[in-house]
């Protein structure tokens, strides 16, 4: 008989025991870091299902005040496990069921589905009973769910309430829990995660998410204040670093780059793995035009990324619910994203080449190519802006090598490109200039044609570079051969605009820079200029003059063609023409910035040079033009 009377009690006791054992197991597993993430995941899944099973048992009886505390604790545990597995809808369902049961117990009618109102009613109906802390824990979880599902608006609506409720209750609630815990631990159902830690985590994550949101909406100053207060909250280092980072971004938006840099530095000091801070500072340096610092930052960034990826040591108590689960908003992730190591390396190499650190640039290019050819797959498949296509990279590297006076290496790279593309080159190809308005669409449509044109241009550029190499080696005959090959390739391209018949392209058709047509004309000009210069060196002045003039037609801004054309004219005794030609060349203002064009499309610096001073002296000796 006594057994029967004790049974409900012992049942409660048994459930508490079961819960506590599960919590212990859950925490134990989290403590051992030796496990792989895979194993951790399976363990979490197991814990979650066990908690759910226990909850099903408990919810089999009608809601009674005695049991409800245990039930809500188990709901908290189960819900947390579900959230940690990103099963948000499941967690949401659990919460709804639990609160409904609470209302059922207190006898209040179910209320409107509007979340803030709903929770207010639940809290009110519970009143100041022993259940109050349990319901507050559940509210914490609801908050976590809102945060994870990016329902920042809802949080905004009850934000004051959330904070104030916790502020007023917190000391009492947490302390109560503590003291009870200390008293008789076997009778008190345990929680998988300290609610206080959860609250702190939620608080800072909310501020970060909201900051990112307002930043993306352009309300920088508003975001800034919140973020700066958040930076002093107790939280994991990573999150503190995020607040600094976001503050920096806000300042950058408010055009205070120096202060932004300060913030980024603080972020890095707080958490050395915060690579996005480094990346953002690099962008600021680029914006400021501080190339040296930019290159430095890039180098640092690349080497940080190449470091072996260390798993983040989780802070005590936050193991189960990682901040990344709570910070899932699009705007934040776009702020935190960093390009892949390879694309950074390419950036770095390009920067160095453009800014006079050719030897460094060459090294970086070679590193890049080595990575691409290595069997090691690490980091190859990272997300981010795609690298330029490989032939493009080869040509850039080749140009850099030539600049670094390593023509043999350059030629080898160009050979690679040529042998790869040669068999695929079309006999004839029509280059269609897309109409202005529907540019994007047509570009996608004629992708295949583009492919063939691009291939032809790569091969042409490779020949051009080889020509440059031979020029550099003063092997004029070979240079002429290669320049000719380049030109022969380029004339295969017919240009078609709108509904007109395909025709041979001319300079006046070049609309915008960077298009295939522009590259084509530039290549033509450069190859003709190169050939012209080579002819000059072998004293074939007539051929030289023809080529140089054609070059100036194809690509009027070609400085070397202009200067050498004048030189040839001078040598032919047409001095006035020569002087006019020179004057005209000097008057050119470069239409395009250096960096906007591929390295290999720039005029070679390695060929035979004409001294401008000498030329000016000659003009002065010539005296004023006759006509003047």
């Amino acid at each position, binding site marked *: 008989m006594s057994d029967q009377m004790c049974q409900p009690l012992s049942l409660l006791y048994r459930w508490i025991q079961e819960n506590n054992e599960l919590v212990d197991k859950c925490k134990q597993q989290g403590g051992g870091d030796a496990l792989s993430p*895979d194993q951790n995941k399976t363990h979490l899944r197991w814990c979650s299902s066990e908690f759910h099973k226990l909850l099903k048992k408990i919810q089999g009886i009608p809601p009674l005040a005695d049991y409800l505390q245990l039930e809500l604790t188990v709901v908290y545990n189960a819900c947390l496990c579900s959230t940690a597995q990103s099963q948000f809808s499941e967690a949401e369902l659990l919460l709804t069921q639990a609160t409904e049961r609470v209302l059922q117990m207190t006898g209040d009618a179910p209320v409107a589905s509007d979340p803030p109102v709903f929770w207010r009613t639940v809290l009110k109906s519970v009143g100041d009973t022993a259940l109050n802390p349990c319901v507050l824990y559940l509210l914490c979880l609801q908050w976590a769910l809102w945060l994870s599902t990016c329902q920042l608006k809802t949080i905004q609506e009850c934000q004051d309430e959330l904070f104030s409720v916790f502020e007023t209750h917190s000391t009492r609630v947490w302390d109560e829990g503590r003291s009870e815990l200390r008293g008789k631990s076997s009778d008190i159902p345990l929680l998988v995660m300290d609610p206080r830690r959860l609250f702190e985590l939620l608080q800072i994550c909310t501020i970060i998410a909201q900051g990112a949101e307002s930043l993306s909406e352009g309300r920088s100053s508003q975001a800034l204040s919140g973020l700066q207060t958040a930076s002093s909250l107790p939280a994991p280092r990573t999150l503190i670093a995020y607040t600094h980072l976001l503050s920096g971004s806000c300042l950058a938006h408010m055009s205070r780059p120096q202060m932004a840099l300060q913030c980024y530095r603080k972020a890095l000091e707080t958490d050395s793995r915060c690579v996005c801070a480094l990346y953002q500072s690099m962008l600021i340096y680029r914006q400021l035009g501080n190339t040296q610092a930019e290159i430095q930052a890039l180098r640092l960034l690349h080497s940080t990324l190449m470091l072996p990826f260390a798993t983040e040591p989780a802070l005590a108590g936050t193991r189960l619910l990682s901040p990344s689960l709570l910070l899932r908003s699009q705007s934040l992730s776009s702020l935190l994203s960093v390009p*892949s190591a*390879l694309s950074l390396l390419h950036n770095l190499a390009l920067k160095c080449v453009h800014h006079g650190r050719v030897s460094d640039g060459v090294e970086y290019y070679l590193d890049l190519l080595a990575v*691409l*050819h*290595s*069997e*090691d*797959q*690490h980091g*190859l*498949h990272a997300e981010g802006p*795609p*690298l330029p*296509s*490989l*032939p493009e990279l*080869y040509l850039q590297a080749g140009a850099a090598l030539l600049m670094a006076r390593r023509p043999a290496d350059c030629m080898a790279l160009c050979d*690679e*490109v040529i042998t*790869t*593309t040669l*068999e*695929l*080159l*079309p*006999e*004839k*190809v*029509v280059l269609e200039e897309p109409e202005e308005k529907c540019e994007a669409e047509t570009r996608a449509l004629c992708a295949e044609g583009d492919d*063939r044109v691009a*291939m032809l241009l*790569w091969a042409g550029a490779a020949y051009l570079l080889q020509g440059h190499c031979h020029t550099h080696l003063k092997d004029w005959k070979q240079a002429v051969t290669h320049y000719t090959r380049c030109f022969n390739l380029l004339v295969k391209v017919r240009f078609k605009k709108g509904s007109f018949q395909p025709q041979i392209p001319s300079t006046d058709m070049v609309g915008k820079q960077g298009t295939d047509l522009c590259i084509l004309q530039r290549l033509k000009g450069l190859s003709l200029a190169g050939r012209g210069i080579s002819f000059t060196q072998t004293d074939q002045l007539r051929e030289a003059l023809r080529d140089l003039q054609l070059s100036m037609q194809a690509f009027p801004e070609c400085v070397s063609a202009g200067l050498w054309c004048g030189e040839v004219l001078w040598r032919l005794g047409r001095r006035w023409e020569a002087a006019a030609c020179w004057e005209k060349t000097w008057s050119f203002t470069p239409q395009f910035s250096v960096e906007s064009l591929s390295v290999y499309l720039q005029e070679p610096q390695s060929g035979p040079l004409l001294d401008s001073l000498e030329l000016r002296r000659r003009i002065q000796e010539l005296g004023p033009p006759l006509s003047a």
Partner: protein
Amino acid sequence: MEGRCAVETWAVGLSGTSCTPRVKFGLGTDVFLCTGSDEVYVFSTEERKLTAVLQFPDPVSDLVGSHDKQLLYVACRSGVYCVSLQFQLSRAPSSPADASSSLAELKIPSEFLVVAEEGVLSVLLVGSVFLTLSQTDTSWMLTLYKSSNYEMLSSFSLPLVSGVERNDTEGTTAMRTRPVLICVHSNDATPPPSSEATLTDDHVRLDPVLFKLLFGVDAALAKSPVILCGLPDGCLCFLPLRLPGSRLRVLHSLEQPVVFVGASVVMERGPGHAQCLVAVGELGKVVLIKTDKGGSEGGGNRTGFIEGCVPGPVMCGCVDKNCLYYSTGSDLLVLDLSEGLSQREGQEKDEETSRKTEAALQSPTSLNVCRVAALAEPRCNTAGEVQLLGLSVRGQLQRITLPAGREDARLSKGPSALVGRSVRDLLSAIGDVCERASVLKTAIKSKNQILRHLNQVLNISFLLKASASSEEHLPIQEKPIRCHGVTSWSRLLQKDSLNLTCVLDNPSPYILERGWTLSIAVFPLSYPPSAGGESSSTNFSFPFHNLHPGETLEVSLPLAAAGEASFPMTVSCSLIFSLTSLLGEEAANLPRLQSRCISLPLNALTVDWLHVLQVNSPTATHKKATSQSNNTIDTVQSFLRSRRVRCSGRGQGGGESASKPEREYSASIRVSSELLRDTLLLKSSDLDTHMPKWPPQNVGLSLLEWMLSEGPGGVTTGHQGDKIALSSSVVHARGPNGHTVKLTAKEVNVEEESAGKEESRTAVEVQVESSSIAAVCGLHHAVLCRVQTLLQRAPEKAASTKGVPSLGLRQVLQRAEHLLQQIQQSRISGAFGVGVSTGQVTRSLLSVYRELRENPLLIV
């Protein structure tokens, strides 16, 4: 003369094909076999026997060996295992018994699990990268792992294409098609050191131009191997392995499950230059992907896709330099790829050629090898013959050697030096054909068996159909196949229950074979008011095997426990034949057939009150008592107790003490004794032994005896012990509901006044008396039924001699009219509900009934 090849069977009896089986060359001369079960077999081609069996915890779907052939990666359902073969073999327990057979059986424990990815369908190893292909609900997942530490590098997904035409005949649905995973290298790419020195069938080298055309310049420049997947949804997709930002892209769609992807040389341009990618679909679509020289516009090389179709289904395939070998399951065929392609090369842009190509693709040559389910890549032996290694459907490992002359057959008609060889080829071909023939023979045999069976079934159906249509004319004995029953009371756990033993008699000339079921439905003729008027039919079915002509089948079924059922009951028998049993296993695949059956009604039996009476003959009681006195006192006591209980249950109804308790109801039937004498004597004349026992004066007794012992409709009463010897013409008995009934048969004289002269006839009056009206009604009905059958049996002449009792009729009619009036009156008042209560109506109806029953007409 072409297409005859030698087949050597090397190993047999490897079973289990839930997935596409695989054959792979492994370490040295070893071959790995995987049939879809959880075992991988290692077969040594040198020793020509199985050397090891590796047993995994889950069914194996795919396997791949490492480049140095030291490690074996095996994809199971739970993940990928990595086994060092040498290590395993050296560690294997080598008992002396094992040493003689040298077959090592190794159980692979789960410690060897290296990649815990579930549902891996195919695996591939490329350098230091290990790839797995698995399927989720909506997409294909290609996952890359580092082979050194199995760290996941990246994962690519491709959405699943639904609605692909599949060969959905039975059998293949169960067999999943494994995705094909191969690695394509550009031929100009120098092989990385220490790996891929020898290319296996998972790695092919492709002509650089075609490689660039298909996979892009970037892949060629990076010298990246390209992974090519042929998926069961028909997609042929590729992934450059070492290219930053590469994606899994679709190259082509076959629109049917891809069975094989390989590369073939086709046109000799250099050693090992594969000029052509070949993909084969399950339904026979063959796609050749090659370089087209000088495209239509602007020149340059373009990719050319040539599609053809061979008669499918294709189970597996492989290619060598020029030929595609594929198995349809019933034959192994070879398709010369070079013919079609070289013609195309000759005359370009000609529609006729493309048609020719298709024609070439449609005319494969048969090699006369059947039931090949998996093929390893072809190898040339020293004599220059092509050797294929195949795994047959039944798990036989076969080496198929193609005749050497086949390739040069166009040039020379086979060297005469190889006559002996060709004889051996012929013999082996004969052997192969013989095997095929034996398979066909057994198939035909079983078909014949089924046909014969079906014939029997049809005969029986016609027989029973014919009898059903003419049933009313045929007396009971002439039915071709019929049932008759015997009722008997049995006592179990102090409860009386009535059993009916049904005997199925097969006097027909046909056998009732496997598949027939005797189905018996038992339902009462009328329902007790307590049952709410619902039919309480009970069905019994008894499947039986063979019932030859003249044999009988006896089944026993419980009719009712005492006091539960209402009689009379109709027992209708029918024979049911189900088509499922006719087809045996094959029917299991045809779900629509499973419910189909033929039902042929036989006769219906009636179990009436007379059958279920428990006669209390003094001798029987006595016998019972004496027999039980031998037993222990306990049983006697229990017997006595049970008697007492029954007595008290009946109240003052009393036992068989004939103390004349008050019997409330009675009914009687009069039958002319002359008629009885005729019919019963006629009947007894059949049974000579009983002849002296039927003295003419004892008609009443014999009537009772006859009624109690057998009845119409083929049901007889099987009383415990021997035949009841009725001492008098009064029978006391207990009905099924426990009430005592008394049956009296006595001869009476019936006076008839006909036109002044008085004539008397002797008649037998059977009187039924009981305190239970149900018993009286039931017995009256039963007795009437019996007399009815008796009359049917009466000879014609006996009826004609009877004078019709005329005078009595009027009196009877008057009485009947009076009763009719009474009935109508009570019905009217009942209908209007006025004047009389329902109780009164019932009472008046009852009195009418009693009057009807107590003053019977004489049946003559």
